[in-house]
């Protein structure tokens, strides 16, 4: 294995740890922080520091080191948290992320930013830990109004800790010679190795060191498993500090930089060992166990491998359907076992398909978890008081969609904060609580997922939107329905914000949001009530790979309709059909007049039923448009594997994709919205052709 592979593992893991750290910091109750959470945050910083040290990412290591020290003080109750301190921690986390990205791209992180953040962190350490204040009186006054920390005085200063070296006994079990030498090398970074002896089964090392046991353990666990290791202080020769032995923790402010194991060290171990490196300090055994449990129950797999399995399973299902068709013609009496076997195969194949598909599914929490931070920062910037509520975090969505939904959703959240929710005084004047409420929710509805961004702000302003639309040159009418008015904000370049802020208001967003979502096969709806808020609803298919379809026949050809677009189907009666100018027809369904689109005309199918009353009208809805699609026959519902037409061919008008039927032939999946556009275009052409024809005929 190459060291570069470990880099990637480290980056991925560090990124996850940073995300955890942010989430925990966000959830932290500043006045009464949960010690488990504090420990978890500390451990995250600690693990990153360790990894950064191993790979020689010095700046990252030093930054995490400073942060870790403060976190350590915090979890021991020496540093009392305040909102501004948490803010600084969050800022540091962002900085760490930048540094990580820099290393990932093979460049050095921004040294200036590092200088700045380390000054800030050091200042907190100095001020909050009762040491002499530094020369920044204005800021000190602003940021240190807290009562002096009693513990901080009691706590031995770094210098005291520093000299306090004691003997540490380390027992290694089941460690090979090569690893053992590495471990001893590592230990020499911590202090003086007094003695070493033993064999592969058990090897004892006695070390004189000032470092904490946890630090040692964390470093050694890069090389071996935690259960191979036992570290204890040899009490007999204990030096003075050992009084607080059971809870020995890293020295407050002066813990030296983590030693850097030789770069080849991790290369001699397998990746599993590296994965287990967040060998959490013993301080939180419970959390440690939980973390380990989660670790062993997941594996990292490249997405293309998963996709390959999904494709293969898709093929399997098709083969199975083909066999099933053959078997269904057989006599059950003479081929009983075969028919039974086919039934079993069918069930197993479907189960397999479902399980495989679920691999790609990810909970919406992956998306939602990044919003608390965004909302908090934005709300502070805008001077608004906002409470963020998330619902349906565990709702699952296909991975490819979940990644693509982040940007549009971020945009909608920003919009809600900026334009939707009012400032606290305005809210109070309107009789609402000063704290605005922003809800993100996700839920399944049939084969779709419904994602909503709900604010209880002022709602959309109909007049303002209409006025703005007019001034932007859009054609509007006062009689437009609310829904149509709301759709205007998706027009390119549209923004009603009176002031363009750096948050939103440049009008380059909503049309992009809409387009992105349409590309994912979904659509956006807006519901708004003046004074009560706005709900933006995104409807997306759960996955792009499998479709619940209704197969229909037209002439000799079979097509599939996405089931979620089908509202109902009926046999049209002659008295319900109305003609409109030219050859346009309308179908009266209950109290509604729906345009009729004839499939065989739109797709030039030969041999289809031409009389409207012979056909079946399927009422479909796509992109908010509803119409009656005339087909010859309904065949049935089935789940199909969606195959992209564009892989080897191109986009076809009126068609969204293709699939392979049980007999191995290809059937096209209709694109309801595009079919409507195609039909419009075609009847326009027919109309023009007729006119030219008339013109040609009349002079003759």
């Amino acid at each position, binding site marked *: 294995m190459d060291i570069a592979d470990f880099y990637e593992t480290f980056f991925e893991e560090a990124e996850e740890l940073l995300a955890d750290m942010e989430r925990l910091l966000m959830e932290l109750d500043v006045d009464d922080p949960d010690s488990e959470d504090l420990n978890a945050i500390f451990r995250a910083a600690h693990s990153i520091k360790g990894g950064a040290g191993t790979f020689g990412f010095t700046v990252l290591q030093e930054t995490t080191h400073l942060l870790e020290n403060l976190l350590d003080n915090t979890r021991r109750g020496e540093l009392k948290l305040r909102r501004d301190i948490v803010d600084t921690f969050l800022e540091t986390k962002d900085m760490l992320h930048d540094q990580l990205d820099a290393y990932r791209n093979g460049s050095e992180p921004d040294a200036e930013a590092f200088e700045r953040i380390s000054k800030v962190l050091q200042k907190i350490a100095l001020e909050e830990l009762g040491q002499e204040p530094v020369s920044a009186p204005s800021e000190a006054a602003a940021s240190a109004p807290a009562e002096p920390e009693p513990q901080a005085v009691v706590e031995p200063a770094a210098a005291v800790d520093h000299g306090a070296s004691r003997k540490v006994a380390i027992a290694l079990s089941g460690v090979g010679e090569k690893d053992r030498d590495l471990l001893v090398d590592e230990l020499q970074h911590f202090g003086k190795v007094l003695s070493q002896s033993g064999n592969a089964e058990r090897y004892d090392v006695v070390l004189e060191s000032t470092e904490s046991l946890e630090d040692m353990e964390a470093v050694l666990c890069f090389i071996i498993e935690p259960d191979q290791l036992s570290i204890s202080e040899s009490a007999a020769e204990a030096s003075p500090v050992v009084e607080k032995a059971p809870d020995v923790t890293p020295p407050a402010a002066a813990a030296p930089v983590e030693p850097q194991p030789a770069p080849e060290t991790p290369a001699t171990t397998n990746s599993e060992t590296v994965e287990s490196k967040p060998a959490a300090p013993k301080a939180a055994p419970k959390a440690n166990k939980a973390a380990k449990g989660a670790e062993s129950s997941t594996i990292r797999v490249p997405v293309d491998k998963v996709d390959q399995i999904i494709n293969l399973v898709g093929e399997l299902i098709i083969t199975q359907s083909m066999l099933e068709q053959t078997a269904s013609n057989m006599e059950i009496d003479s081929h009983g076992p075969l028919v039974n076997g086919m039934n079993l195969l069918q069930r197993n194949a479907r189960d397999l398909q479902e399980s495989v598909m679920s691999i790609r599914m990810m909970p919406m929490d992956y998306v939602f978890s990044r919003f608390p931070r965004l909302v908090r920062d934005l709300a502070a910037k805008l001077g608004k008081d906002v409470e963020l509520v998330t619902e349906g975090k565990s709702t699952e969505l296909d991975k490819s969609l979940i990644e693509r939904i982040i940007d549009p959703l971020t945009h909608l959240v920003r919009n809600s904060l900026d334009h939707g929710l009012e400032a606290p005084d305005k809210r109070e004047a309107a009789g609402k609580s000063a704290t605005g409420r922003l809800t993100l929710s996700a839920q399944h509805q049939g084969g779709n997922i419904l994602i909503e961004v709900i604010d209880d702000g002022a709602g959309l302003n109909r007049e303002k939107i209409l006025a703005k639309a007019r001034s932007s040159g859009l054609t509007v009418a006062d009689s437009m329905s609310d829904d149509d008015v709301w759709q205007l904000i998706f027009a390119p370049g549209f923004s009603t914000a009176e002031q363009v802020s750096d948050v939103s208001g440049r009008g380059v967003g909503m049309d992009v949001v809409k387009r992105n979502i349409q590309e994912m096969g979904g659509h956006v709806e807006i519901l708004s009530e003046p004074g009560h808020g706005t709900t933006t609803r995104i409807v997306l298919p759960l996955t792009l790979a499998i479709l619940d379809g209704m197969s229909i026949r037209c002439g000799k*050809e079979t097509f599939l309709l996405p089931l979620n677009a089908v509202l109902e189907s009926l046999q049209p009666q002659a008295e319900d059909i109305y003609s409109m100018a030219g050859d346009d027809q309308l179908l009266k369904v209950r109290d509604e007049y729906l345009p009729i689109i004839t499939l065989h005309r739109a797709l030039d199918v030969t041999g289809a039923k031409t009389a409207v009353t012979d056909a079946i009208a399927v009422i479909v809805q796509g992109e908010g448009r509803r119409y009656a699609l005339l087909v010859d026959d309904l065949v049935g519902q089935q789940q199909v594997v969606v195959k992209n037409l564009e892989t080897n061919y*191109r986009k*076809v008008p009126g068609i969204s994709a293709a699939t*392979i039927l049980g007999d191995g032939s290809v059937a096209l999946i209709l694109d309801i919205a595009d079919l409507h556009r*195609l039909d419009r275009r075609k009847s326009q052409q027919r109309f023009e052709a007729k006119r030219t024809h008339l013109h040609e005929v009349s002079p003759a």
Partner: protein
Amino acid sequence: MSNQPSVEAAITDAASSEYLVFSLGEEEYAVDILKVQEIRGYENVTRIANVPDFIKGVTNLRGVIVPIIDLRLKFDLENVEYGGQTVVIVVNVADRIVGIVVDGVSDVMSLTPDQIKPAPEFGVTLSSDYLNGIGSLEDRMLVLVDIEKLLTHEEMQLVERTAESA
């Protein structure tokens, strides 16, 4: 470029490069064998509406949806029939898999550079832009088709132009 024998062929083997010879009506054509993935019969093609007539539709090639193009229609040949002899040459061009319908596949030929003559400027239906040249073999004449150029040309409407997809 198009009037020269393929540079690749000259490098790999100065002596010859191999071509798959197929027939369209009475004429013999050939394509670079390295572009050919497989040869199969013409069956089970699903028609696609609102596309040029030479695009016969799509078919299922072991789970992959592959467009089928009838070169006979593209080249305006008469007597286009589909029978047991009708063959689809599956080619791999520009990261795409495309099937082309021909009347039959005869053999694989090795052509030396001096057997490949520059293609003359001619017809509208088959511009010399799409040709690698003319292969002359005793009394036979092979039209060496640059299948990649032909299939990716915009008038084939096989590959979406960037302007269109925006």
